[in-house]
């Protein structure tokens, strides 16, 4: 079946190392996306025409462009055109944050505007201050809607990091390919075993996250 190559030498460790490279890019991008996305989403919910116009173009670009094209533009395009010396890793983080921020801001905006005005008004009528209204009434409700949605985004970002091998980052999929190439003669069936293991690794990372999200969704169902 081709699993035996994984036990040759340090192959399994190398595969895990590749997973680590992918996770590093994911986690940094996710942290940036969530922070910037929350800020941008709050700005977008204020319904200022200029902010709305800019954010709409931004979201539209992200929606239309395949992530791979964005990666190529930043890594091969910008670096040459502007004489910047960006590493593949930095380029990936820029692209994934660019994408993640757009999606996150849209989630934050939709959660913010989904809170009915009556929630603010009835809090005010009870004498709660603006700050108290946000802390005790609005943010808990937004959190309950936002957390499951953003976890979904996080798993999609983790999965999509497999694209970074296209700009030369040695992540888990690339390591897999290298192992298969190196063992072409001795174990011609390595492809199945290696890719199945890669699949399993991604599954082990994403499955607990999405299970947790489903659990929260159920717990907070309104």
């Amino acid at each position: 079946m081709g699993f035996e190559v994984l036990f040759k030498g340090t192959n399994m460790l190398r595969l895990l190392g590749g997973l680590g490279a992918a996770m590093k890019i994911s986690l940094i991008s996710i942290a940036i996306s969530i922070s910037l996305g929350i800020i941008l989403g709050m700005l977008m919910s204020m319904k200022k025409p200029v902010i709305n116009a800019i954010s709409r173009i931004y979201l539209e670009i992200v929606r239309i462009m395949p992530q791979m094209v964005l990666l190529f533009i930043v890594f091969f395009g910008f670096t040459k055109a502007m004489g910047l010396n960006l590493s593949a890793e930095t380029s990936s983080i820029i692209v994934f944050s660019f994408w993640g921020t757009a999606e996150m801001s849209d989630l934050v905006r939709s959660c913010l505007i989904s809170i009915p005005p009556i929630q603010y008004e009835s809090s005010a009528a009870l004498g709660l201050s603006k700050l108290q209204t946000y802390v005790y009434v609005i943010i808990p409700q937004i959190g309950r809607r936002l957390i499951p949605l953003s976890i979904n985004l996080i798993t999609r970002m983790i999965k999509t990091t497999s694209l970074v091998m296209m700009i030369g980052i040695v992540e888990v999929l690339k390591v897999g390919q290298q192992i298969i190439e190196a063992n072409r003669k001795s174990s011609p069936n390595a492809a199945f075993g290696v890719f199945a293991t890669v699949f399993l690794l991604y599954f082990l990372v994403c499955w607990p996250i999405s299970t947790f999200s489903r659990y929260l969704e159920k717990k907070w169902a309104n």
Partner: protein
Amino acid sequence: MSEEILKIEHLYKRYDDIPVLEDISLTVKKGETVVIVGPSGCGKSTFLRCINGLEDIQDGHVYLEDALINPASGESVQNRQRIGMVFQSYDLFPHKTVLENVILAPMKVQKRKKEDATEEALALLDRVGLSARKDSYPRQLSGGQKQRVAIVRALMMHPEVLLFDEVTAALDPEMVREVLDVILDLARNNSTMLIVTHEMAFARAIADRVLFLDGGHIIEDTDPGQFFDSPGTDRAKKFLQTFEYESVR
């Protein structure tokens, strides 16, 4: 007795350039139940919202006893808790249980102890027949139950004036009664209330005074008997006729 508690002087309210309320003046005595009726869009809900400072006003003054509570005066925040309001749409906090909904403001605004607030909350919930539902979430309650909780939540702040903005308008007919009974009970205990409603039989039963609003003006301000039996203006007559049906047989 019968001291004045709420005084509104020459209140003007416009949305952009569209006048909604024009030169409204009204004095409400302690313990009085004022019912406000009128056609849709006449400004009656806006009037309540202006009293509570949820809407800014373009001119005029609102006094609660001696305190000026115009939204712009900056004192409205401290004084707002002295006026309780219950809205048409269910406005309970969906992420909190019935009990948590009811004790949030007393604990955070009035800094009362949790045990103390809980004790009072349970007594009030019992009074509206909902103490068994204290740990339910709003989504598990019927519309009528939600509105009764909303009334308890407003009462917990010990407001001096209670505003009811069409609290039964979104309810199924069989649930209207349970909510109106709670308000009738409050009237018996001499609460000061301003009630906007389309339930004419209820208005007649509970009102000490009826205000008829139309086109942003107070057209009539009389006792309920006179208003419902022999309204002084044609507009009020026409309005009341919309609640009657002629037999087709």
